[in-house]
């Protein structure tokens, strides 16, 4: 497996570093993958309005793990990816990596302050657009809008959780128009820029609607937020024992149980137990993929005495049984 680590804040440098990993060169902002890596391209777009983006359209010929290391700077990545995973097994160590293989086709907004992983297994097709921008840029972008402040507040709350949105038909349509714009078409940069701006507009519009949907409460204090984050951490400490009950968690957070439940959902976007379960299953998957443990060991480690309950819960999360995952090896 090829493992690529990076932490760039400039996409031109990023692309030329990718080219070194792939043992090829970037010509005219275009990186054509060499046959041993894959088939297709990554392309840098320097948009006339100052934004940088990378358009990808390729199929990989080996397992590649992209790992974006965290940096302590205020940058954001917005990714629109349409990913078709191959059926081929993963080869190599992916122990302990959270959220791996979780991303299929999705829109994802991440902060450069958090690590981010993307595993493409041999045969995986990736079609996507990544945009990279600074906090200043985002603030400038939102400043003109009356709802800008609200969205900014929401994002600063949310950034520790994952901001995912499914790629629906409309996103896929716009993405298709971007990817299908001819490479050397004179007005290509305009077409690409307009579509990227449409996607940005759509993403933030939907964030706003989402906020309204869950009765987003901007009155949470920083203390509240910190307590809730502590609770989340507590919850995931040890899966082998029963999760701590709501009442006890509430005591730890010094909040009433109902306030805790509501605040938790606002910050993490899902109820407490669902959050717990999601991370528990991700952990299970990472353990299984490491090939160091049997299904039974993983089940026990995650607090399932009854393996068929474990299998059911696993299947509910990933559409396949733990044994199916292991059976590949």
């Amino acid at each position, binding site marked *: 497996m090829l493992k690529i680590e990076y932490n760039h804040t400039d996409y031109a440098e990023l692309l030329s570093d990718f080219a070194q990993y792939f043992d090829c060169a970037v010509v005219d902002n275009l990186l054509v993958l060499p046959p041993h890596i894959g088939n297709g391209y990554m392309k840098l777009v320097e948009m*006339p*309005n100052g934004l940088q983006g990378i358009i990808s359209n390729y199929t990989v010929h080996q397992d590649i793990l992209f790992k974006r290391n965290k940096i302590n700077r205020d940058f954001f990545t917005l990714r629109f990816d349409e990913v078709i995973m191959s059926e081929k097994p993963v080869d190599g160590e992916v122990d302990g990596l959270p*959220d791996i293989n*979780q*991303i299929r086709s*999705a829109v994802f907004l991440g902060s450069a302050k958090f690590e981010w992983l993307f595993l493409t297994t041999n045969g995986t097709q990736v079609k996507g657009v990544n945009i990279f921008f600074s906090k200043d840029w985002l603030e400038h*972008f939102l400043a*003109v*809008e*009356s*709802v800008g402040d609200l*969205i900014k507040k929401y994002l600063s709350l949310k950034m520790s959780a*994952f901001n*995912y*949105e*499914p790629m*629906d*038909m*409309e996103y896929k349509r716009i993405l298709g128009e971007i990817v299908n714009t001819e490479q050397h078409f*004179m*007005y290509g*940069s*305009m*077409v690409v*820029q*307009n579509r990227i*701006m*449409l996607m*940005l*507009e759509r993403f*933030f*519009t*939907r*964030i*706003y*609607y*989402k906020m309204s*949907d869950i009765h987003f409460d901007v009155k949470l204090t920083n203390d509240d937020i910190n307590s809730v984050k502590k609770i989340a951490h507590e919850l995931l400490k040890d899966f082998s024992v029963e999760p701590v009950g709501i009442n006890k968690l509430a005591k730890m957070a010094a909040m009433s149980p109902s306030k805790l439940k509501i605040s938790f959902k606002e910050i993490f*976007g*899902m109820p407490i137990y669902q959050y717990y379960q*999601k991370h528990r299953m991700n952990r299970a998957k990472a353990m299984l993929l490491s090939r160091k443990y049997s299904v039974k060991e993983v089940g026990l480690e995650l607090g399932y005495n009854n393996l068929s309950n474990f299998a059911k819960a696993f299947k509910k*999360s990933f559409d396949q049984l733990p044994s199916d995952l292991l059976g590949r090896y």
Partner: protein
Amino acid sequence: MSNHFKFEHPDYVQYVQQLADSFKVKAAANLLVLPPAVGNGFIWAETLPIGISVMAAQTVMVHEITLSQSPAAEHFYSLQFTEYSKDPSEIKLPGTKKNQPVTQLQSSVRLMHTLMPQTYVFPEGVLTQTVCFYFSKNQLNQLVGTNAVEEMLTKYFPYLLLNEALEPIATDYRITLNELQVETIDIPLRLNYIQNRVLLLLEKFIINLFNRKEVVTGKLKRTDGETMRLMQVEALLVKNFTLAPPTIDELSRISAMSPTKLKNDFKNLYGHPIYVYFQKNRMLKAKSMLLTGKYSIKEVGVMVGYSNLSHFANTFKREFSILPSEVMAKDGVLVYNS
């Protein structure tokens, strides 16, 4: 009250405020709702984040109103999309008696420059829908990049400005225009929403320009009279989807062209054969009605002339690769990574 308004600066926000003063009403948030004595409808203006000034209007005036921009020191281009809706039965053919010269009531896309005097006509008793915006060379640079701008400004724009070659308002424009021609745009990222749509209009204009042979070669094959008759054909075609569309023979009679010439010229001007164009517009109409969320699929089907809903669903799917039911379900609540 005078019906002729003059403006010094190419800035639509000023237009709207000045008009509001003349009509003795307030234009809060740069939205002017016409008082009954003037007409029915609205005009709004906005200055967008990248600096483009835009105006959208939908009016039926009691008396004709003319706005004119005197040649200005500031150098701006303007792009004006104007549609005058007429009842198809009232479309006067060239050579017949008409109250108003056809040229004055022609729906079209027009490129202008502030070096030339410009007028905007809001005729009496005719539904007029318009979107116009001023843009500078600098803003164009931000959109297409400097290299492409040079070629555009030196080769294509001068030709258009000199010849005033009419471009029809075709389907792809119309969808975007309809999104802007509403009284209040109630969208969270309102300015970005407007800006993105204005830039899409500009993009389509530029790309059409690039594809229009007549502009590239500097040779117009059609006369403006023919272009206008084709536009009338188009207006008839998309007017009312509940009825069966006019036949080629009827259209050919109305446009005073042979069926072959009509078909060829229509395709050259609008990019699609007549019935493909009709069908596309019909489906777009259906889609936009579905997206409003106000109508059921059945209602929409009937409104675009389908009595058989499964035919409607099939045709719809062929056009957009999704079923009408999927459009309706599309804008649900966001879900997390699951």
